[in-house]
């Protein structure tokens, strides 16, 4: 588990979050990793050993006061006493705690546990940090509470409480600009509200229900549901939480594209994760075109087949588009959102290995060269064969000569004798010399 690993192995973001969680003042933003590691080692490892002594806390608090950065550590104490360290919570408690902060957690297993713990720590920090920063004005506090409640409420899709948010959009923007971390769904909500400043005066109860009369209100509710769904899907993110916002916005945009309502430039801009004003623009388009769009769940579970044609995916999926177009205005699609279209067999899948048209031999050799090599191999053996042939021929010649002079037995004897010595005698010139040698024996 990375939690117990040597701090040098952790990423800087991880070190930062650990330091924050343990109430340690962060070094200046441009510090190198070693600084973080040192602090981590100093503070957290001490704490792990000493079990959260108060002395350490005072030191860190003083250090925090000196530093120019974060003030949240001052108020960390009450928060910590209220809620135990996330790593001590059981899976169930962890999930509940995350749900309180508006995060719907997936399965909490070994590999995902640390992630959710860190997430909870960040949420705890920032809920404290918010108390710090925004406790001055009652109004802002109220607003924050409302937004918090709205955030959690939107998750549950209760219309009444969400009404409050509508009246308080302008100041909310400030908050979310300053905040990098959680409440991402609220940020999206505020951006939506930004797009429709004029519409804030209509807090009708129907506006957030699914069956609405006015298209603008309906579309607004749809977008809020969609945003809630977005937040559900993305969960409270981190620094560039806009990315996950874009993720769903891209989905929406792609839907728009299938109806040809959005221009290409808007899509590109969204794809490059610039939410800002482009979002509001897309939302305006969305308002018009999402009249008949579904509830949150659908946008969540909709398999974006129409995402692919712009990306140049396979043809069968494009053929699914007209079906989608027909389906969209009329009825709800399948509950699972799965559209079945035929698919051509895929190369490279299991048991369908890609076969190349031909395989190269190890050495690039022409057939002629191969033949020549064969011949050459045989040539050597041919030479030997020829020599041997002549050798045998000479032997036979001598035998023939011998048969003329003597009897068969004598011939055989001489032959056997001569055969031994003939190897030497062969070298000497003349056949008579050989006969003489044989006869001597």
């Amino acid at each position, binding site marked *: 588990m990375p939690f117990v690993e040597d701090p040098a192995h952790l*990423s800087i*973001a991880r070190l930062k979050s650990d330091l924050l969680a343990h109430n340690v003042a962060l070094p200046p933003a441009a510090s190198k990793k070693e600084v973080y590691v040192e602090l981590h080692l100093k503070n957290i490892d001490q704490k792990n050993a000493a079990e959260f002594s108060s002395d350490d806390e005072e030191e860190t608090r003083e250090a925090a006061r000196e530093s120019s950065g974060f003030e949240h550590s001052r108020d960390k104490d009450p928060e910590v006493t209220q809620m135990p360290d996330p790593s001590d919570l059981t899976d169930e408690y962890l999930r509940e705690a995350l749900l309180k902060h508006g995060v719907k957690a997936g399965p909490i297993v070994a590999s*995902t546990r640390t*992630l959710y713990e860190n997430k909870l720590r960040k949420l705890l920090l920032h809920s404290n940090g918010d108390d710090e920063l925004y406790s001055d004005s009652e109004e802002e506090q109220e607003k924050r509470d409302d937004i918090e409640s709205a955030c959690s409420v939107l998750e549950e899709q209760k219309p009444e409480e969400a009404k409050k948010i509508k009246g308080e959009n302008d100041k909310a923007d400030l908050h979310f600009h300053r905040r990098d971390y959680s409440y991402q769904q609220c940020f999206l909500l505020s951006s939506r509200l930004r797009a429709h400043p004029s519409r804030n005066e209509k807090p009708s109860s129907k506006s957030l229900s699914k069956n609405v009369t006015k298209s603008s209100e309906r579309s607004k509710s749809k977008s809020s549901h969609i945003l809630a769904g977005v937040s559900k899907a993305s*969960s409270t993110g981190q620094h560039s939480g806009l990315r996950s916002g874009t993720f769903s916005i891209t989905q929406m945009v792609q839907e728009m594209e299938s109806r040809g309502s959005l221009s290409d430039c808007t899509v590109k801009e969204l794809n490059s994760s610039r939410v800002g004003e482009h979002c509001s623009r897309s939302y305006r388009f969305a308002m018009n075109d999402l009249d008949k769009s579904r509830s949150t769940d659908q946008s969540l579970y909709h398999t974006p087949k129409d995402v*692919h044609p712009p990306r140049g995916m396979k043809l069968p999926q494009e053929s699914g588009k007209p079906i989608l177009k027909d389906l969209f205005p009329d009825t709800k699609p399948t509950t699972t959102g799965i559209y079945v279209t035929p698919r051509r067999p895929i190369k*490279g*899948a299991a048991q369908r290995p890609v076969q190349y048209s031909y395989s190269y031999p190890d050495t690039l050799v022409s057939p002629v060269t191969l033949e020549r090599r064969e011949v050459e191999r045989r040539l050597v053996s041919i030479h030997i064969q020829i020599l041997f042939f002549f050798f045998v021929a000479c032997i036979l010649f001598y035998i023939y000569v011998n048969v003329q002079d003597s009897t068969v037995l004598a011939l055989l004897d001489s032959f056997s004798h001569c055969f031994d010595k003939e190897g030497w005698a062969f070298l000497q010139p003349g056949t008579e010399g050989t006969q003489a040698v044989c006869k001597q024996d």
Partner: protein
Amino acid sequence: MSTTSQKHRDFVGEPMGDKPVIALSGIGETLGKKLEEQGFDKAFVVLGQFLLLKKDTEMFTDWLKDATGANSRQAGSCAQCLKEWCDAFL
């Protein structure tokens, strides 16, 4: 599509089957080795982790950075790759 690499396109274009973890976009030799050490020896195991995190690219990038020391670009690329694969085949 404008910023996807060839590796990305190769992965997203077909079912991953038994492809190794290195086939994922953003995962090279070093990161692949680190993943294999942790037991993620095939691409489908990493997909499992992605699905466990409810297909949330943010959380997945965090996890990948923690687990392997990947940088933002690599982790983001991998997450995007898996997300598109899921969109196409899941």
